């Protein structure tokens, strides 16, 4: 079993706001992130897949296939978007780094037939990242 990680970047804006909370509660829980005009990040995404090395090709996965799926399923949907307003998952969910990592996992899991997904690691900042392993 070998693990392979592909890295890519996207830039997006978002805000954190729960309509079930009062204004004051939103400010208390989410701080500056509750500003409804939004703010943005350069996200770094690392997708790790695992599998046996194919004896014919020497690959765990054809990198071009993985890159095409990442571009189509993740980057085209999230890059240079407002996550709250343009990405369907976040119509009802707050686009925290945790929820974005889970949403990316779900998008990839449905389409990634070329390898087994192991981990989605999403950096919001160089000093803050979330790992999701598909655990319930």
């Amino acid at each position, binding site marked *: 079993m070998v693990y392979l990680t592909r890295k890519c970047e996207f830039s997006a804006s978002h805000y*954190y706001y*729960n309509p*079930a*909370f009062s204004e004051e509660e939103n400010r208390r*829980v*989410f*701080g500056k992130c509750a500003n409804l005009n939004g703010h943005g990040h350069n996200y770094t995404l690392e997708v790790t897949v695992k599998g046996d090395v194919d004896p014919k090709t020497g690959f765990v996965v054809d990198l071009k296939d993985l890159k095409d799926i990442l571009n189509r399923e993740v980057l085209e949907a999230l890059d240079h978007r407002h996550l709250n307003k343009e990405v369907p998952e976040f119509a009802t*969910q*707050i*686009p*925290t*780094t*945790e*929820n974005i*990592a*889970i949403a990316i996992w779900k998008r990839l899991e449905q389409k990634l037939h070329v390898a087994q997904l192991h981990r989605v690691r999403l950096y919001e900042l*160089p*000093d*803050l*990242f*979330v*790992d*999701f*392993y598909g*655990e*319930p």
Partner: protein
Amino acid sequence: MKAHLTRRYIFSASHRLHCDDLSADQNRAVYGKCNNPHGHGHNYALEVTVSGQVSLETGMVCNLVDLDAAVRREVLERFDHVNLNFCPEFAREVPTTENLIQTIYNILKQSFRPAHLEKVRLEETAMNSFEYEGE
């Protein structure tokens, strides 16, 4: 859904690796340059990983403000810009990064309750790092 969240912090401290039970020659042989009586220092990078269910209300494993406050209060205020050999935690232990990381893990395990402490990772330099999961 369970997610892991990692936050990175920086602190700077000095130390000298020296064991009183060893002779001067043995200390020099074991610890090399790190046994210099005057000590030396590092910029340590600390990565704290916590895990838990992502809250449906907040979308978070835990509030970063709480994690930052706990790490600042319990770890950074204790170990940033100090000589580790003079800290009570190292009165009887050599302040190697192995011992430091276990101390930091145990302090955070005691003091941070909002999420499960999964792992602590400590870089002494860009070339060497240590991980401890409480085993």
